[in-house]
């Protein structure tokens, strides 16, 4: 039987090409994802290992920066204590923080998360092994700075020139005295590095005389674990975090794994969708092959092959096909992995460079997945092969198989669809977002139901389509219609493959566009300010900024907002502090009970939603546990309607400030005098000294930045789902090629009685378009339904969400489906038109 399977595989290799392509693309996606995530993971690890190379022990301050009690301070006394321990080769006390260096346009030169600053620690030879100076010299003195080469280039400054930077407040200028190298992954991944001498770094980034971290390196032969224990024992209990280099490495590895595995799992989910689509194509091919080969199989049965042997032969053939296709797919996957990194990097992912890492497991997984998927998909068709009776070998002429009833299938499809729709309708009644799993199950059931029902639905659709286009397409259209209807299962399976991709694309598009609209509404709804001033490093703004802006001519109000996290009965929430009287000038906050005037020291206002959740009303007490260990129990003085400017709790700065490490504003909301809004933006920037740290955003900017990220994610999804669509297109080509092959004699006869080549082409093309449009219409319909019903979940946590169907974009999807139909038909149609008439008529 193995030989029969192999022979069959070889005999039909061109016909199996399209199927192989479907498997190949799916496995390329899988193996590409696996190799990509392994490579990125290993690149990250290499980077990390390099930077932790000479770290034997690390001591970090329990809570960095400000206001540490004397005994907890990581100061030079601690450095000396550690340095005196046996086995310690050196101690590198470091200070680190965020430093935003201004580029030529006064924007941050580094990424928001990677703009780091540190101290330069020269050894006895004047060099710092961690930051080798490649040009100029190390920083010495308050006015000097050293940058990494890329950042220096962005500022446009040469060594000896001046650099503008900001840390948490005003802009400073420093003299660039050197260029340093670093292997800090944050920096190489798009950040920036600024080095100062230790005293300056402490002054700018921390507290004078204190450090963030001590990096201890050991003398050769010292046991890292013992040294760590010794350091731990030598220092005051619980004041610092003491970790060995190995522990640090393990911790970072875990973080890296977590990060890469989340990317990997997302991509694998899409690869799964692509493979699932592939299943339809494989099943279709094997069904057709077995139908074509039924006499052959009957002959095998007649000469004594058992049913089991026939099934096994088909499955072996599928397995071989899967193996070959996934082996090629795996190789293609290496290309995908390389491309993926390039694509993500160009989208700003800042992935480190490194060689492609091909784990044997990736290869095995790709091959395994390819073979298993192909064999599973061929399983149902193989059962059909087993049902072929030996007597069919003796049948004089080939009889088309009697159309099997679709009753069972339709009943099953109706039940599945009804169940799915019922679940989705139930989801629309859910009030909270906890119904995600239910909605996913409902969506899966609905899609499965529609797939099962597709043969039934194909009939009215094809009739309708043919009627709509009948005048234009004439006899070719009529013949195409009959061909599409001839085997509803095949038409449906081909269309379903396209439907899956398109329903996901449509559903995501509708939800994304609706969310986008919601975001746009949100920005306009509660915020009446013209500009929002924030810090680019999320570190907050100096309180001077609000005061400066308030004095600016043309500014009606500049209201600072700050916030602090707290827990109430272990539930985390955020308390905002603002001057409540002036908050009304920049935001529309409606009080539903109590009076805003009563909100003063020792009282709070809460949102109606939070009040409901916590059972609060005016006069009740809100217990607050702050993260610095302090507690408070202010009275609720007022309740306001939930809004997007201040979340759960609004109070006065007097309640919030004591619990902040540094009193800084999260944002300053600026309302311009009437007619002055336009010119104010430049003025604000100017007033704040062209500070790279400070972001000034108008309402439009805010809307665009939110909307932009939604669009970006949507386009990434399009890209990933595009693979599923490509495989579906392969399926359409496959089905058409097979049907042209099956209808060779019909086509020959049609040509003989006078159908021109163009007519034959048109016939194949129209069948293709009908299949593609059927899949597209089903997909768009299902997608819109799922987006509508699932959208209720979004609304529960995002009340501005409003279902918007982007008809223009959906029309584009349908046009693309039309184009897909035409394109998929190019090759089969050409083949059909080229058929030799006489040979075709005589073909068996």
């Amino acid at each position, binding site marked *: 039987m193995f030989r029969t399977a192999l022979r069959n595989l070889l005999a039909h290799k061109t016909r199996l090409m399209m199927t192989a392509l479907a498997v190949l693309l799916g496995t390329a996606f899988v193996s590409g994802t696996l190799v990509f995530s392994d490579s990125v993971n290993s690149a990250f690890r290499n980077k990390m290992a390099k930077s932790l190379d000479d770290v034997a022990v690390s001591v970090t301050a329990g809570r960095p920066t400000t206001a540490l009690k004397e005994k907890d301070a990581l100061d030079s006394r601690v450095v000396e204590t550690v340095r005196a321990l046996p086995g310690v080769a050196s101690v590198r006390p470091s200070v680190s923080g965020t430093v935003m260096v201004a580029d030529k346009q006064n924007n941050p030169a580094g990424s928001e998360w990677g703009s780091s600053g540190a101290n330069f620690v020269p050894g006895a030879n004047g060099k710092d092994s961690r930051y080798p100076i490649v040009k100029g010299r190390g920083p010495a003195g308050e006015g000097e700075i050293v940058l990494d080469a890329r950042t220096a280039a962005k500022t446009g400054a040469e060594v000896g020139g001046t650099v503008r930077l900001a840390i948490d407040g005003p802009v400073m200028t420093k003299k660039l005295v050197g260029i340093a190298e670093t292997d800090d992954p944050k920096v190489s991944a798009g950040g920036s590095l600024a080095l100062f001498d230790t005293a300056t770094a402490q002054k700018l980034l921390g507290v004078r005389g204190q450090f963030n971290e001590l990096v201890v390196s050991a003398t050769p032969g010292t046991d890292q674990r013992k040294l760590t224990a010794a350091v731990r024992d030598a220092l005051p209990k619980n004041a610092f975090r003491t970790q060995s280099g190995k522990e640090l490495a393990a911790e970072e590895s875990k973080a890296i794994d977590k990060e890469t595995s989340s990317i990997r799992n997302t991509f694998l989910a899409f690869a799964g969708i692509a493979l699932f689509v592939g299943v339809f194509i494989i099943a279709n091919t094997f069904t057709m092959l077995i139908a074509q080969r039924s006499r052959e199989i009957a002959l095998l049965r007649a000469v004594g092959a058992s049913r089991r042997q026939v099934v096994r032969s088909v499955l072996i053939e599928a397995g071989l096909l899967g193996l070959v296709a996934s082996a090629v797919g795996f190789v293609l996957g290496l290309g995908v992995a390389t491309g993926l990194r390039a694509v993500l990097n160009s989208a700003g992912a800042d992935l480190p460079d490194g060689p492609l890492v091909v784990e044997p497991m990736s290869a095995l997984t790709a091959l395994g997945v390819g073979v298993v998927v192909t064999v599973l998909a061929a399983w149902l068709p193989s059962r059909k092969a087993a049902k072929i009776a030996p007597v069919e070998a003796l049948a004089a*002429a080939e009889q088309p198989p009697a159309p099997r009833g679709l009753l069972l299938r339709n009943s099953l499809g109706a039940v599945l669809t009804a169940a799915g729709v019922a679940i989705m309708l139930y989801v629309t009644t859910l009030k909270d977002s906890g119904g995600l799993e239910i909605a996913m199950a409902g969506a899966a059931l609905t899609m499965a139901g529609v797939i099962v029902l597709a043969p039934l639905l194909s009939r009215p659709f094809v009739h309708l389509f043919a009627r709509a286009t009948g005048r234009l397409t004439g006899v070719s259209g009529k*013949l195409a219609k009959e061909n599409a209807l001839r085997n509803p299962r095949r038409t449906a399976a081909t269309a379903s493959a396209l439907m899956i991709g398109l329903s996901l694309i449509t559903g995501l598009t509708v939800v994304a566009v609706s969310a986008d609209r919601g975001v746009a509404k949100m920005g306009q709804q509660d915020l009446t300010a013209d500009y929002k001033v924030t810090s680019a490093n999320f570190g907050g703004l100096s309180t001077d900024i609000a005061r400066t802006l308030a004095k600016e001519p043309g500014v009606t109000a500049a209201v600072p907002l700050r916030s602090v996290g707290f827990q109430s009965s272990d539930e985390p929430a955020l308390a905002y502090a603002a001057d409540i009287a002036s908050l009304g000038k920049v935001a529309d906050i409606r009080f539903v009970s109590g009076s805003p005037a009563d909100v003063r020291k020792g009282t709070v206002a809460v949102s109606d939603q939070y009040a409901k959740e916590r059972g609060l009303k005016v006069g009740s007490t809100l217990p607050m546990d702050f993260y610095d260990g302090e507690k408070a129990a202010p009275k609720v003085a007022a309740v306001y309607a939930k809004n997007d400017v201040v979340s759960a709790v609004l109070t006065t700065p007097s309640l919030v400030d004591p619990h902040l490490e540094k009193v800084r504003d999260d944002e300053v909301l600026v309302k311009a005098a009437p007619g002055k809004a336009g010119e104010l933006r430049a003025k604000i920037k100017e007033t704040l000294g062209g500070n790279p740290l400070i972001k000034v955003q108008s309402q439009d900017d805010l809307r665009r930045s939110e909307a932009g990220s939604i669009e970006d994610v949507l386009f990434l999804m399009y890209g990933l789902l595009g693979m599923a669509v490509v495989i579906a297109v392969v399926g359409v080509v496959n089905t058409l090629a097979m049907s042209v092959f099956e209808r060779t004699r019909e086509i020959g*006869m049609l040509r*003989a*009685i*006078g159908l*021109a*080549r163009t007519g034959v082409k048109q016939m194949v093309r129209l069948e293709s378009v009908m299949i593609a449009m059927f899949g597209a219409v089903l997909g768009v319909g299902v997608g819109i339904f799922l987006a509508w019903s699932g959208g209720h979940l979004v609304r529960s946590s995002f009340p501005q969400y409003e279902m918007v169907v982007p008809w223009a974009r959906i029309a584009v999807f349908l046009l693309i489906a039309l184009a897909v139909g035409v394109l998929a038909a190019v090759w089969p149609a050409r083949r059909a038109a080229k058929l030799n008439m006489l040979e075709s*008529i005589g073909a068996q």
Partner: protein
Amino acid sequence: MSHAAAFPLAQAPTGAVAARATELSKVYGQGETRVTALDSVSVEFRRGEFTAIMGPSGSGKSTLMHCLAGLDSVSSGSARIGDVELASLGDRQLTRLRRDRIGFVFQAFNLLPTLTALENITLPMDIAGRKPDQQWLDMVVGTVGLSGRLTHRPSQLSGGQQQRVAVARALAARPEIIFADEPTGNLDSRSGAELLGFLHESVRALQQTIVMVTHDPVAASYADRVIFLADGRVVDEMREPTADAVLDRMKRFDAKGRTS
């Protein structure tokens, strides 16, 4: 009877020439695999005549029909339908010629399984975008005895009925000439006789011109005239044939092996 008639064609019956082959040759392959299927054949088919082409396997009878019907190209010489020289036509024009002026009945697989009998009958006109002449259509359908089965699909018809649908299709478009390639090859003798009766009748009653390739002497006996081919040449001709006479003539091929 008159199988002693002169060759290529001595006496012509009434009516113009519907199709004509002159010095027609057809060669397949090159070099060692070169096969001459037709060797300078000259023959005429007149309007309103039912001609059978006979000959042993490989005599070139099907090739002659294919060349005359515009299904296959000729190597040299001329093939004409009416006044039209087929060699001068491109694929598109040939297709139109077949559609508008020629009818076909094949041995098997004449019908599209997805279309009803009536749709199959009107298919050539559908392709041409013409409306069928309803009166004529009714007469043709009536003549071949399919009135009650027009909405049936081919799978619901017997083999004989299917071939009658094919004949009706060939007649319905009123072609100048109908080519039939072993139309009874797949039928039992009763259905075959019935079908041949219809072909004969369509020539008599509807003045149709039919050229039929067959290897069955009984089938040939329904024709007005039989052309015998051997080794790619026309070797004999018989008017008013009977099955026995044709059989005798055919036996001579077997006996002599090769005739020239």
